[in-house]
């Protein structure tokens, strides 16, 4: 365990110094972050801006903004921590550099998941937190609610990581699978609104088939104290199950990589 923490420190150091090589990118990235939040706000304000609309699916503007905040935060988590690593999996398989990873005497999943960081998108995290803070300031939030939200958001991050890893792992079989993760970003787009904003059958799908509801809606509900016990329990359970499942899938993929491809 100590050893793995040490490794994380070294990986972070290496990836940070690699990115500081390209200082000029920072401006572009900030621009993209601002554009992202601007458009997200535009989307939700159009929705609430129609005559006679004061709430969407039972959520007030502030509450929906909370969801937007969690959405931006998650986008940040994905682009800072998850995507930079996952996109390299497909690349490494295609170029054969996965060989080097597999030759190293450390857990390969750990290795591919922690090697890279995209610091440039760090502002996304701040914007997300800022939005959450702003939205929450106009709502009644108890300390217990905040704690629950933090824990549930933790399991949301695990869920997102597992989905990404599972999708990226298919790279061991297909060409050009960088795009498979796009598939998830597509579905994840639904997380910019509370699930209650969707028609009932879709709401069902987003909760029980694709765990999108657990990523933004559930933590937001926890924060406002509107969360039922069932969903609160389900989130960590789903996270744990997904984690074990993707771990198994990863190992299976590595085993068949070493038995088939080059």
């Amino acid at each position, binding site marked *: 365990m100590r050893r793995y923490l040490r490794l994380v420190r070294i990986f972070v150091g290496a990836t940070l110094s690699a990115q500081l090589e390209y200082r000029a990118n920072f*401006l572009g990235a900030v621009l993209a972050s601002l554009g*992202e939040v601007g458009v997200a706000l*535009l989307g939700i304000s*159009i929705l609430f801006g*129609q005559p006679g609309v004061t709430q969407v699916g039972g959520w007030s503007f502030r509450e929906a903004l909370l969801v937007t905040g969690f959405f931006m935060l998650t986008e940040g988590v994905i682009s800072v921590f998850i995507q930079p690593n996952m996109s390299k999996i497909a690349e490494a398989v295609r170029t054969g550099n996965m060989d080097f990873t597999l030759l190293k005497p450390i857990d390969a999943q750990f290795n591919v998941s922690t090697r890279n960081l995209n610091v440039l998108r760090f502002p996304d995290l701040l914007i997300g937190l800022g939005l959450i803070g702003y939205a929450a300031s106009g709502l009644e939030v108890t300390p217990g609610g905040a704690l629950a939200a933090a824990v549930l958001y933790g399991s949301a991050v695990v869920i997102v990581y597992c989905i990404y890893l599972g999708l990226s792992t298919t790279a061991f079989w297909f060409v*050009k699978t960088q795009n498979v993760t796009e598939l998830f970003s597509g579905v994840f787009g639904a997380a910019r*609104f509370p699930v209650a904003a969707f028609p009932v059958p879709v709401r069902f799908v987003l909760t029980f088939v694709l765990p999108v509801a657990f990523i933004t809606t559930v933590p937001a509900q926890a924060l406002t104290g509107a969360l039922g016990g069932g969903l609160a329990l389900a989130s960590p359970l789903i996270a744990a199950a997904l984690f074990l499942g993707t771990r198994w899938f990863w190992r299976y993929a590595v085993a068949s990589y070493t038995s088939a491809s080059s």
Partner: protein
Amino acid sequence: MRALAFKARVLFATRFAEMAEYRAEVVIWMLSGTLSLVMMLVWMAQAAAAPGGQIRGYSAPEFATYFLSTWLVSQLLVVWVSHELDFQIRQGTLSPQLLRPVDPMWLHVASHVAERLVRIVPLLVMVGLFTWLSGASFTREWWAYPAALGLAALGFSVRFLYEYAIGLLAFWTESSASFQEVVWLVYAALGGMFAPLAFYPEWVQRVAVWTPFPYMLGLPAQLLAGKATLAQAGRGALVLLVWLAVFWVVRLIVWRVGLRKYGAVGA
């Protein structure tokens, strides 16, 4: 002339072969552009919950029609050339292409057109499926279809050119991908992916009409939904033609200047 046609045919055939290899990815790209579909669902739920079942004169099926149409059109407008250029310029794989006696742009055009052909069948299947699921109904006026297709073709050309110019920014900066993202956001927002343009705040609408985006995305979608006239289509086509000329020149200038830079320092 014959030689040119032959070149074009071979180029196209190999690109098609390449794209057919990536058929699974093509379907995935299609499914990943979900913003319009998400918005469709949200607006349908809104309309269903609203008193009178309508918002600004749109009922749930009308929302479905509008957003499915934007989805369909946006599928025809997909352009990834800036990613490819960014990659090629940074990895130095552009160099071999420069040795060939043809502007590399045409290679990219060929891939994009070929990809569109691979895309068309699954695209129609999915539109059919979504139509059935959502209760959308497209216009019965036959002229709306060629008009929408024409606008989409023009829109694709415009988008291709400006994305190409953005990709070429990689000659100077490492962040052309960020610019691409920002431009995509503007395209999606002003194109009408969040709602029909009339739903937007007044000032946004006033800005939008000066950009090509509403005419390449929202307008053909409105045509398909039976909410736009032939005259509007004609005006939109004119605007797009002007933008096409502008971006053609811009792309050419950026390309020339960029090549000089590339030649001077490498990339």
